[in-house]
């Protein structure tokens, strides 16, 4: 039997989880190329844009689930999957951004700049995307070592990014904010567990 946390355990689970994280993209590609009767509907650009954004947000929230879940269950080995989830969040958000810039805006730089300045929900989205870049860049072991304590401080930015991401989603919706609200509630719960833990550990 393979013990969780052992080397063979990671050798087995990491590729499986990696491939699982790619499944949303695979499914989107099947839809984009209309394989097996799948399709992206009448407005494929909008569908791609929204789906990639949602997956980016889902992976952000999954990444934020690791710590409370680890504390709750005592499964410390979970921590070793956090970076992968975070990087997949970055991956889907990069694709979300590229879909916006290339397919939606046709690489019209002036139009993109105007959008970022004039449309608050796009300002938010772009802010979240830009803030994610230093986190992705410093996600390697070498960077963790080099930055030491500052690494953790820097990576707390993910809380800001997640809030910005949900807000970006919420502001973009025309009227039916139910979906965005659900994402917001999940994020609020994840953040609340941290506040709860902090208070407990400080003995407040």
């Amino acid at each position, binding site marked *: 039997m393979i013990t969780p946390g052992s080397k063979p355990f990671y050798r087995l689970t990491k590729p499986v989880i990696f491939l699982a994280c790619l499944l949303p993209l695979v499914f989107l590609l099947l839809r*984009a190329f209309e394989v097996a009767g799948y399709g992206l*509907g*009448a*407005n*494929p*650009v*909008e569908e*791609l844009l929204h789906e990639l954004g949602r997956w980016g947000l889902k992976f952000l929230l999954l990444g934020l689930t690791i710590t409370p879940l680890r504390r709750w269950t005592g499964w410390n080995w979970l921590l070793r999957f956090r970076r992968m989830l975070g990087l997949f969040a970055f991956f889907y958000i990069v694709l979300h951004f590229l879909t916006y810039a290339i*397919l*939606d*805006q*046709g690489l019209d730089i002036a*139009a993109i700049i*105007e*959008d970022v300045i*004039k*449309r*608050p*929900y796009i300002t938010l989205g772009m802010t979240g995307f830009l803030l994610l870049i230093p986190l992705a860049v410093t996600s390697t072991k070498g960077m963790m070592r080099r930055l030491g304590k500052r690494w953790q401080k820097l990576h707390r930015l993910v809380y800001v990014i997640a809030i910005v991401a949900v807000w970006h989603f919420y*502001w*973009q919706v*025309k*009227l*039916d904010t139910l979906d965005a609200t659900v994402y917001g509630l999940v994020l609020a719960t994840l953040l609340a567990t941290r506040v709860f833990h902090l208070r407990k550990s400080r003995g407040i």
Partner: protein
Amino acid sequence: MLIKRPSDILPSEITDESVYLKRRDLLKMAGIATAGALTSQSVFAAAPVPGASGKELTGIQKSPYSTDQEPNSWSDVTTYNNYYEFGTGKDDPYRNARDFNPRPWSVVVKGECDKPGNYDYEDLVSPHALEERIYRLRCVEAWSMVVPWVGIPLASIIKQFEPNSKAKYVRFKTLHDPKRMPGQQRRILGWPYEEGLTIEEAMHPLTLMAVGLYGRELPNQNGAPMRLVVPWKYGFKSIKAIAEISFTRKRPRSSWEQVIPAEYGFYANVNPEVDHPRWSQARERPIGAGVFAGKKATLMFNGYGEEVASLYAGLDLRKNY
């Protein structure tokens, strides 16, 4: 000098008037049976419409108001809809309106008119000739389609009700029946959906009461059995499944205006210069053009300025959005 050539038709060849008139009747009768099929077929004879369903309508006339732009596919027009009575997702109406039965249907007519009452669908539609109107449709969400509607100029229907001189506006209401329209079980908009036009807009020859699409009866997800089409305004003005028409002195407030007045106004004329507070209206994404087609410039009044701009002479369209 111009010499008129005598007619080379012999008097014996000229059809006797009584025969001629009879033949007319015969043609007319045959016409009732087949002309409809012929006309509606002739409109799309070149290519039968893939995926089209629903009862074929007969006796459809072409209209000079139609655009010669290529219409969107049946599938685009019937699977990508904003119709919150059947859900807020774009394909929700396609999936959720399947079991909706739009018959029997009647429309309550009231307010400032001499012939108020409860009118059956047939009372409103049968007296008029059906026209095909291929119109551009521009949604407030910055996408657009070209749709081959079949309908009756709203003015013709309104004249039946004899509105009086106090009728300054026309207010429309959608059917309110949460059992048949499941989207109404969630209070997203105030139900029933309400829309309004000035009487001048309502009487404008471009304004259509649509009862069909692609030569067939209107699919449920497109607003069966009858919906408004006001092609120079954003799509949300074109209210679906109309169950009430009233003539009012005061300006009605449309459903979207009631919920978010800062974003949706009464006029809602397509205007590339006046942005929605959250997104630009300068460009639009043509549905069905493909992933790499990009966007195109939006036209003032959706390209119908020549016909309708005069309705708004002297009106500040930035304030009256």
